[in-house]
C-alpha cells in the first residue's frame, strides 16, 4: 500500500491514534523493512523481534530510547563500529540510564536493581497494594464518575513504587506533588514533537541521592538503606549517583508504563460489556485478561538497537551501524504467532507469550510489579462496582468515540479515560 509508505511513523499524528494498520502493512511486506524517512529498519515480526532482542552481542542498546533522534554524534563507517560506540555513547541522551547500557556495565547495574525488586520484597509490596488501591478508590468511586488516568492509575502506581522503594510515609505527599506537577502531558521520551532533555528526572535524582547519602551515614531498617548499601556483584560500592539512579529508573520506567496498561485494560472492560461480565463471573480470568491487554495494547510500542557489525535478521542482511526499531506491539500482533491477532480474547491460550516486557537481557525488571498492580486494581474495581461504562459526555457515543493517545513513537496509551460506574452499596 503506497499510503503506508508515504507515512512517517516518527512524525505522523494519525499513527499515534492507531499505529496498527501501518505496522501490519509493514509486516505484510517484510517483517524486517527499512522505512524511508529516517533510515530505520522496522522489525515487526515476532520471531525476528525475538532474534534481535536476544542478540546483545551484535546489537548495542546505546540508542535504545532515542534511535535516530538525534542520531549518532559521528558518521558510522566501517564493518565494526564497537569502538565508535565506546568512544561516543556518553554523548547520547539517556546514556546514564539502564536501558541504554550494554554488557558488562549493564550486567552490574541490573544486578543492583534486581536486589531491590526481590520476590520477597515484591510479595510485601503486593500485600500493601490492596490497601493502597482501596484508599485511592474511596475517593475515585465516590462521585460515580471520574477520569481514570489522573484520578486512579497515576497516583496509584506512583504510591506503589514509593512503597516498594520504602519512601518514608511522611515524604510520600511531597513525592506525589513533586512528580504530579511535572509537565506530564508533554511527551517526554519518544515525543513526536519535542526535543529530549538530557535527564528529565532531576527531582527524583536529587531526592534519592539525598536518601542514599543519609542512609550511608545513618543506616535504618528500611528498603532505602538496602539500596544505599547494596554492592555490585564484584563487591565494590556504587557511587551515590549510581545508587540513586536505580531508584529513579524504577519510577521513570514503572510509572508511565503501568499507567498506560491500566488505562488500556479499563477501556476494554468499559467498551466491551461482555468481557466485563465474563470477568465479573470468573475472577480467575483476570491474570490472562491482563496478558491479553499487554499483547493488544503494549504500553511500549518498541525501542531501538544499533548493529555493531554486519548481521542478518530474518534472512535480511543489515550493515554495521544500522538503526533497528524492534516493535514489540507489532510482534504481539504477528498472525504467525497469534491467530486473529486484532481480536481481544481474554481466554487466549498463548496470550502470555507476548513481548510487551521485551526479551533478552533488557527484559522489563518490573514485569511482576506491573502484573500485580493490574491484578489488584481490576480485582478491587470489579468488587466495588456493579457496572463500569465509558463516559459518552467525554468520549462521544458508541460508534463515534474520541480517544487521545500520548503523542510518542515509543509509548502507547490513553491520555484520558473518563468512566462512569455504579458503586456497590457499602463497599467503601
Amino acid at each position, binding site marked *: 500500500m503506497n499510503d503506508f509508505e508515504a507515512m512517517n511513523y516518527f512524525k505522523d499524528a494519525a499513527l499515534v491514534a492507531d499505529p496498527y494498520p501501518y505496522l501490519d502493512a509493514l509486516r505484510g511486506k517484510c517483517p524486517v523493512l527499512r522505512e524511508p524517512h529516517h533510515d530505520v529498519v522496522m522489525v515487526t515480526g515476532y520471531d525476528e523481534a525475538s532474534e534481535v532482542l536476544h542478540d546483545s552481542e551484535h546489537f548495542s542498546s546505546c540508542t535504545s530510547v532515542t534511535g535516530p533522534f538525534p542520531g549518532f554524534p559521528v558518521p558510522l563507517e566501517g564493518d565494526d563500529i564497537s569502538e565508535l560506540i565506546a568512544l561516543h555513547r556518553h554523548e547520547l541522551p539517556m546514556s546514564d540510564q539502564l536501558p541504554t547500557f550494554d554488557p558488562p556495565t549493564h550486567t552490574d547495574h541490573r544486578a543492583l536493581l*534486581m536486589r531491590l*525488586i526481590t*520476590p520477597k520484597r515484591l510479595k510485601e509490596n503486593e500485600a500493601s497494594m490492596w490497601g493502597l488501591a482501596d484508599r485511592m478508590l474511596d475517593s475515585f468511586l465516590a462521585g460515580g464518575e471520574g477520569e481514570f488516568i489522573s484520578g486512579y492509575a497515576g497516583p496509584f502506581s506512583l504510591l506503589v513504587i514509593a512503597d516498594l522503594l520504602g519512601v518514608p510515609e511522611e515524604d510520600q505527599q511531597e513525592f506525589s506533588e513533586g512528580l504530579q506537577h511535572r509537565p506530564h502531558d508533554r511527551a517526554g521520551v519518544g515525543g513526536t514533537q519535542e526535543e529530549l532533555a538530557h535527564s528529565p528526572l532531576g527531582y527524583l535524582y536529587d531526592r534519592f541521592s539525598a536518601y542514599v547519602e543519609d542512609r550511608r551515614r545513618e543506616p535504618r531498617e528500611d528498603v532505602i538503606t538496602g539500596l544505599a548499601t547494596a554492592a555490585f556483584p564484584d563487591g565494590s560500592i556504587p557511587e551515590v549517583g549510581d545508587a540513586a539512579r536505580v531508584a529513579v529508573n524504577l519510577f521513570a520506567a514503572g510509572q508511565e508504563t503501568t499507567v498506560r496498561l491500566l488505562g488500556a485494560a479499563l477501556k476494554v472492560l468499559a467498551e466491551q460489556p461482555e468481557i466485563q461480565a465474563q470477568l465479573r463471573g470468573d475472577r480467575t480470568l483476570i*491474570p490472562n485478561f491482563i496478558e491479553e491487554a499487554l499483547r493488544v495494547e503494549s504500553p511500549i510500542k518498541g525501542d531501538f538497537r544499533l548493529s555493531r557489525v554486519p548481521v542478518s535478521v530474518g534472512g535480511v542482511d543489515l550493515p554495521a551501524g544500522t538503526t533497528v526499531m524492534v516493535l514489540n506491539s507489532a510482534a504481539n500482533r504477528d498472525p504467525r504467532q497469534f491467530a486473529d491477532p486484532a481480536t481481544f480474547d481474554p481466554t487466549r491460550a498463548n496470550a*502470555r*507469550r507476548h513481548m510487551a516486557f521485551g*526479551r533478552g537481557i533488557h*527484559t522489563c525488571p518490573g514485569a511482576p510489579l506491573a502484573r500485580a498492580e493490574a491484578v489488584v486494581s481490576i480485582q478491587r474495581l470489579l468488587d466495588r462496582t456493579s457496572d463500569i461504562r465509558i463516559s459518552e459526555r467525554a468520549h462521544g457515543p458508541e460508534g463515534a468515540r474520541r480517544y487521545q493517545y500520548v503523542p510518542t513513537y515509543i509509548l502507547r496509551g490513553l491520555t484520558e479515560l473518563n468512566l462512569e460506574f455504579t458503586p456497590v452499596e457499602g463497599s467503601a
Partner: protein
Amino acid sequence: MKVAVDDDRCRGHGVCWSTCPEVFDLSDEDYAVVRTPEVPAEYEEAVRTAADRCPEHAITVS
C-alpha cells in the same frame, strides 16, 4: 541432563515456559517451576535455549 530454576532470581517472565512448556510451568504465583528436573532427551535443546534466553539467568542445566 538436569535442569533447575533459582527461585531467588526468577521474576516470572515466563520465557522458559514459552520456549519449552513440556519441561517448564508457571506456579500459581506466576514464577517458573520445573515439571521434569530430569530432562527428556528430545527437549534438551529447547531447555538449553530457555536457559540461554532467561533474562535473569535463573536457569541452570547440568
